């Protein structure tokens, strides 16, 4: 009994020290911490916009258009007299909601495809990866435009469009990790105990292949935010009057020389969000890289 307890303790300590190791290494990465702080700030905006700036992001005040930043409207008002700050905070929710959902879709589907392809190899791998090659051959923005043009613009269509276009990236990363893991001795051991393929993949392969996937998630969110903003900029994003940073940029571009603030604030928000997720991704990659443990 005492022997069993001590083994459990040892496992627990090992787990704690692995996570502690990761946190310690991540903390050393100043860029990663800055990225995380910015993301937390955007997450707070996305989770509590009504508490931060009020619920009314859509009401127009046509007699108060193009009001430059002042005490009442810190970021000014737009072409329809709406408060830019309010719309930016609500825009954070739109951008993060779509990008996180899109990345979740692509991560889940891409990981499933990658695991199956990498684990079974052979013909299965060949077929799945060629399908992914086809997906990769289509530029993500063009694919997004085609999907939105075919199905109309809504948040769900955008999530689908963005999600589909990043599946290939996840599947390739996951496949390469699985290939290096599938021939490890502990996988052989699991197989020898009679574990099913599903159990082996979910219990032993996937947990050990997560590190690059986590990094890819962070990077994909950044790319997704940019793509959504791009689609919104050309009028294929979220339907009006839902605030979205890309469409705010697009609205302001005609008056950029007279009312530059309308494009500066959402532009900076997009830049900061993308920058933050990239910094976080870099930080995570460094912290999760076993070669940098020393």
């Amino acid at each position, binding site marked *: 009994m005492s022997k069993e307890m001590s083994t459990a303790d040892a496992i627990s300590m090992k787990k704690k020290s692995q996570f502690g190791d990761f946190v310690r290494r991540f903390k050393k990465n100043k860029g990663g911490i800055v990225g995380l702080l910015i993301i937390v700030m955007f997450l707070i905006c996305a989770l509590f916009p009504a508490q931060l700036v009020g619920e009314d992001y*859509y*009401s*127009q005040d*046509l007699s108060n*258009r193009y009001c430059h930043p002042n005490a009442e409207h810190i970021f000014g008002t737009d*072409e*329809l007299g709406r408060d830019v700050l309010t719309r930016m905070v609500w825009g954070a929710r739109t951008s993060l909601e779509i990008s996180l959902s899109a990345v979740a879709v692509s991560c889940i589907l891409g990981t499933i495809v990658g695991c199956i392809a990498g684990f079974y190899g052979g013909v299965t791998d060949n077929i799945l990866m060629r399908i992914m090659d086809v997906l990769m051959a289509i530029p993500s923005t063009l694919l997004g*435009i085609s999907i*939105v*043009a075919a199905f*109309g*613009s809504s948040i769900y269509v955008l999530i689908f469009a963005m999600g589909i276009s990043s599946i290939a990236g996840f599947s390739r990363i996951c496949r390469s990790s699985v290939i290096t893991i599938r021939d490890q001795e502990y996988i052989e051991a699991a197989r020898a105990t009679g574990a099913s393929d599903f159990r082996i993949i979910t219990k032993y392969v996937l947990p050990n292949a997560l590190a690059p996937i986590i990094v890819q998630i962070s990077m994909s969110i950044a790319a997704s935010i940019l793509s959504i903003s791009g689609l919104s900029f*050309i*009028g*294929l994003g979220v*339907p*009006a*009057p839902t605030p979205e940073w890309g469409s705010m940029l*697009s*609205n302001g*571009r*005609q*008056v*950029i*020389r*007279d009312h530059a603030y309308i494009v500066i604030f959402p532009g900076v928000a997009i830049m900061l969000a993308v920058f933050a997720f990239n910094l976080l991704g870099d930080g995570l990659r460094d912290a999760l890289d076993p070669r940098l443990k020393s």
Partner: protein
Amino acid sequence: MKKFVSLLLVLVLAMGMLAACGGEGGNDGNSNKAVKERIIVVTEEEPAHLGPRTNSVAQGIPNRLIYSALMDYDYDTATFNPDLATEWEWLDDLHLKFKLREGVKFSNGEDFTAEDVLFSFAQTKTDSTAISTMAWYDDVNSYANGDYEVVLAFNYPYFPAMQVLCGGRTYIADKTTYEKVGADAYQREPIGTGPYKLQSWTTGSNIVLERNDTWYGGQAKTPEFEIRFVQEANSRVIALETGEADMAFYINGNDADRVDSFDGYHIERGRAYKYYTVCLNMQNPKFADRRVREALSLAIDLDALTDATFDGQASVMTCPIPSKTEGATPIYGGGTGKWEYDPDKAAALVKECGVEGMEIELHIASGGEFKTAAEIVQQFWNKVGFNVHIETSKLAAREPAASGKPWEASIRSGNASEVTSILIIYDSAFGSRIGNNDDKLDKMLDDLEQCYDLEKRKTMIKETLQYIYDIRYTMPFAEVDTIFGIRDDIEGCKFSPSISLWNLEAYNWVIYED
């Protein structure tokens, strides 16, 4: 002294001759100054093709310079002038005879004859973009008398036929070349009898035209004419600011003062025929009850909508057609021209009809002004109890004509200058967004287009406009100004606010270099 004066004269003459021969741009016959080799204009949209049947504003300028029509319409004096036809005569209400100009050649050297006219018009019967405008034309019974006389037959009397024959969809193509190369190739490499001919067309960048030396009207004053495509209005302003362009079309109202402040440039602006309207589909049961339509119309503050959408670049309409058009007279608000904005009454009507929360899809084409207008209309309608969703269509495939799915409500723009052409959107045969199913309105429109009596037309136009206003399926709200940025030293350039640019007479434009 005499010798000295003679020598001086010889020298001056010699210098004059040298100057006359110098430079590719040559010079203008009335001036010793060199002519700028190429006039560069920047415009927003690239034409889809340069075929002889113009169906977009983007084709307006190049086609005007490449092709000619039977007649030319002067918008200022509202008169018809000879072009490829020198004389015309109504034989009866259904036959119009034209005597054609002799000795005219296409830019490829082919002779222009009556066969080219009949061939070009016959093409309009199979071109989907021209069918509605040319429904009156009877190609079977039209005929030529020799090479230089043609008689056009009508399926029914059609008042605007003369104006239709002044270009746009009725430019004359070279039959021989057209049949030889096919429609697609012809549209890409057009051959016309106009003052310029195509030199090059770089997709996405520019169209360069060069002087057509076989033009019967003489010689265009500037050797080359370049049309650059710059989609962003801001970038077109920058093209003027940097001196890259001699003229920029479609400047935004908020940039007008800026352009005026540029050294060597000024702004020309004027009321155009382009207007914007909210449309409800007449076949949609949601709008079958007139009270619902009245509520939708009373909910919109036309002044606020126009001002906020166009930022001072447009005026509020007072009747369903632009104010410059034949027969335009104040109709709104019982003849005052003022739209009744009454949100309280609108809300009461919504309650009375029991349509609170009724969902409406408001469709728009992608474009800044459509989006802004749609958001404002959405707020007005939502305030009185509707639930409006905006649907943006980026691709033509999602337009009702292509997809077969009619739009419930939409915002569209119109651009014609003649009253029948403007009102064609209400014709049941036109289909599209309004989807007219009202026989009375159809009859009114048919009667109007077949009436040649000017006095009678005035009454008919007024009655038709009043009826359109009363049924409230459309809410025409803004007529826009055309704003161009133009170089101060460009000569021969007569500004025309007609957004179709058909009568800019760009062959007269010239810039003399110091």
